[in-house]
């Protein structure tokens, strides 16, 4: 397995892996961000101004 990892060009799967990971991370946190209630988001965004 090591040898394959070192030498494999992996043209056929690396792009999919990279895109899959990125898409999963983006989608997960986009969903989380939109699930954040508006009043909570507004409150959080005003924290620096809360002097």
């Amino acid at each position, binding site marked *: *397995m*090591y040898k394959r*990892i070192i030498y494999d060009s992996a043209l056929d799967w690396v*792009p999919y892996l990279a895109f899959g990971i990125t898409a999963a*991370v*983006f989608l997960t946190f986009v969903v989380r961000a939109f699930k954040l209630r508006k009043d909570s*988001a507004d*409150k959080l*965004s005003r924290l620096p101004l809360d*002097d």
Partner: protein
Amino acid sequence: MTTNASKITIEFDDRTVRRFMIASIIWGIVGMLAGVFIASQLNFHQLNLTSWLSFGRLRPLHTNAVIFAFVGNMMFAGIYYSTQRLCKARLASDLLSNIHFWGWQLIIVAAAITLPLGLTRGQEYAELIWPINIAVALIWVVFAVNFFWTLAKRNEPSLYVALWFYIATIITIAMLYIVNHLSIPTSWTHSYTIFSGVQNGLVQWWYGHNAVAFFLTTPILGIMYYFLPKAAERPVYSYRLSIVHFWSLVFLYIWAGPHHLLNTALPKWLQMLGTFFSLMLWAPSWGGMLNGLLTLRGAWDKLRTDPVIKFFVAGVTFYGMSTFEGPLLSIRAVNALSHYSDWTIGHVHAGAMGWNGFMAAGMFYWLTPKLYGAKLHSTNWANFHFWIGTIGILIYVGAMWVSGIMQGLMLNATTPDGLALVYPNFIDTLTSIRAMMGFRIIGGSLYLVGMILMAVNIWLTIRKGSPVNESREVAVIERTQRDTMGLKETFLNDPIACTLAGMLLVLAWLFLPPGADIAALICAGVFGVLAVKRFQSGHGRWSAWYDSLLHNWMPFTVLTFVAVALGGLIQIIPTVMVNRATNVEDRIQQPYTPLELAGRDIYVSEGCYNCHSQMIRTMLPDVLRYGDYSRLGESIYDHPFQWGSKRTGPDLAREGGKYPHSWHYDHMMDPRAISVGSNMPAYPNLFTEKFDQKTLWKKIAVMTQLGVPYPAMTDTEVKTTAVEQGIQIVKELETQGRSGALPDTKIIAIIAYLQKLGKYDVPELEEKLKKTPEGIPFPLKPGIPDGYRTSAVTK
């Protein structure tokens, strides 16, 4: 601190903020002055006044000063100021704050002394010697404890997004710094990194790239998310976007390091990962930039009058431009042109001067009146600083673009039949960019003038006022309102357990031997199904766990660590764990003799790697110019690797045997006597100084410990072997008409090293020839296209 029922009045520790701010300005000017000086040395070689003021030794001083002294101190000032306000709590410990400040300044002073003395580890942005590395790690821990302790005693339940970026900075830099600096000492001032060749290259650029990401970017983004709303007097444009920005940025950034090694001997799949993740970084980077710029909605009129807003807007814009250019340079075809050229230099300076420098200036102009209770001495001066700085950056970056693209095109130009170079003489390409190198000095000087003007402006403001520590009455919150999750709740829950178990099974699939790897893959599949079912039956718990991150720093920190560690693990472990003897593309580097090793240490000490690479890329122009492309096995005993990142001079990977000893002897004494038009410093000191014999045995012992196959030798044998080889070189020099050289001088050692470059053995060649089926192109022949070599080896 006075207490009144559930409210208390706290006095923020602004003294620490003031100290870091002033230190940042002072070190910034020192670092940029060094930058202008070394830029001048490239055009006027006479400015290499002495050995300790030579380009190779001062360039690391410039980069370390700007990154760790200027931006580092600025970052600490911004983090400490904003964290106290966002947590509604004074910094946890005055003692830790003092240790942090003075410890960091001592580290900078130690670096400023050791680097010009030629004491270096020979890796970019990781040059500092091992005792200073340990000090950096300790002071970073002090910073981390002070920061997290402040979070733990905060009086605000929620964690604002700026704090997220600070957490990512602290844990990721700790991880990167420790791994990349793992070394075995040979003396109090010297060590060898435990990694070699490709392993070292990958770990170094995993560190180097992410030093940019997590030292120069994430803390400044946190500062942007705090100070920009303060200056614009309105909340951040979209808090939801900031969440997506944070997670996607920290997760993707860590994978992109291999884009520093495109077209090299690095395995292709790693190069591809580097390219893909770099390209996808466009999205979060521009999301962050837009979030910053749109925060000014309804306040754009301030841009006309407020220099703080000017600096912030320009800084964020430079962030966007740099993060557009970075992925562009990570495309393999573009990188073939840009890498090793001034284009990269222009790119990093757009980020350092435009993003870091302007965000620092905006923050300092905003902070000073508040920290000293006085109106800024001159707004006009601040505006003038903005314009002279902007013009300076544009001249600098524009000149480097032209220089880099011009030299890259010339170096890569081949005749129509593709059999010869159009510009075979490297010096011709250097001569053509001299004017642009001159414009760089002008651009850098203008920027430096702006910095000095800011220092004077702030100094005069400080003199008008007096130090002010802000006091504020805050409501004390109950312990149950914050950090309700301890270690148990942090780790024993579905999201964390499923993520960690999934990662372990995938790693097991990658690393276990045949048979067991398939079993691990099947387990991973079964586990994935179970995890999905568990999520379906209790997604409310998963959601609640995520929501708790907004109020609990510990699970948040763990998740961030998992996000940044994953990319590094998958990229580095295979390369580090691999059995080097069977994975070297049928070439194994010949170990250096004691004299050659001494010469190599001199090469590293003089910072030759700042201008010379030792990596012939898998590109036709490189092969035509420098010889057969470099293989993984040819640098397998190089601790540290010397692949380089810039070619102000030619590549040296196959320098050995190219010229007689006398050529190197004359060239080191007066480069222009050999290469008319060269800008290389002369090294007369090498002709009188003796190479280090005292610790040579120890160095060989450490190399042996690291796996380099040296025969057992006593201290005396090591010295005798070195001097005998020196005598041989001196004799050969005499036959070439160069008399008077001494066998124990540095020049002899460095000639020995240079003549060894590119020497390798072909192990088990005959056995492999016997085993190779007919028609398979094996073993590899010089010039075999890059795309075919992998399939040949894996047969």
